[in-house]
């Protein structure tokens, strides 16, 4: 690592007059393909949940229905491929996100405790949140790549969580389906904002 740094400095010094005036930190590059796939996924998951809610209690709305089987299989593939695509990109920074996430827990505790009629449940939810953040830190699953890999892993994990809820409850009905879909939408928006940050100034969408 140190030898690599010295070698790079040597090369820079030798280059002298060809010193680059623009730098690219960590190789962060905007990928319109990721944006396109995320938008398409979001449109389809909204339509899918709406359809499952309308058919809740019928065989067509069950986790074992052909439509659900096709949808979950398809997006397991599409989202896993997005993560792999990001892993193959030149982005080199190791994301510190899981390590820092516990900082959020402290501040969220007070805010959630304000929820009406929910103080006891709020405490349980925060304890669950805290332990899940610690679990993620221990597993290192969210620290295994660049920040783009991390945000796309979150989209994939939330899609798998939606599937897991459907399997457990056998149907998708509000308020569970509404909340699960909102959380899926949040993860898609966060991933879109991550990509948006890398877009060159003045570039068209």
């Amino acid at each position, binding site marked *: 690592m140190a030898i690599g740094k010295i070698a790079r400095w040597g090369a820079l010094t030798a280059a002298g007059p060809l010193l680059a*005036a623009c*730098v*690219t930190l960590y190789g962060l590059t905007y990928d319109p393909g990721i944006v396109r796939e995320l938008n398409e996924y979001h449109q389809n998951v909204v339509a899918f949940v709406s359809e499952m809610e309308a058919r809740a209690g019928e065989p067509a709305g069950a986790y074992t229905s052909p439509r659900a089987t096709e949808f979950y299989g398809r997006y397991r593939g599409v989202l896993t491929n997005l993560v792999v695509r990001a892993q193959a990109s030149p982005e080199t920074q190791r994301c510190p996100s899981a390590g820092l996430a516990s900082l959020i827990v402290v501040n969220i505790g007070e805010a959630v405790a304000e*929820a009406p009629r*929910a103080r006891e449940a709020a405490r349980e939810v925060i304890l669950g949140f805290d332990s*899940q953040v610690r679990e993620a830190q221990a597993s290192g699953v969210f620290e295994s790549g660049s920040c783009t890999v*991390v945000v796309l892993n*979150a989209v994939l994990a939330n899609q798998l969580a939606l599937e897991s809820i459907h399997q457990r*409850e056998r149907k998708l009905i509000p308020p*569970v389906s509404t909340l699960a879909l909102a959380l899926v939408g949040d993860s898609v928006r966060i991933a879109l904002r991550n990509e948006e940050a890398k877009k060159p100034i003045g570039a068209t969408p």
Partner: protein
Amino acid sequence: MSLNLEAVTHQAVAAGAAAAGTAWASIRTVATQELHTLCARLAQIAAGVASGDITRETALILVGMARNNAIATIAMLTTHTVMLAQRVVDAALAVILHAVNAAAGFPLIRI
């Protein structure tokens, strides 16, 4: 070759600050919105558990989804911050490049 180092430094810092100005405001807005949403989702899960509409087992899965989003939010803000640093450095370097090339009388530094 004559170069007013003090003036160039001042201009480079000003260019970097200008580049950071709008970008930093944007990061603050995004961070506020996402953390507010995260709090709201956890409050909704808690309310659902309290009313009996959401079982504890399902609530755990939903909390796990919120956890994923908290981690993703920090990752996304990290990307914003790195890009901000890049824009600051680029803006400052552009000023220095222009000044050095003008002083040298030929394109000593090229992009």
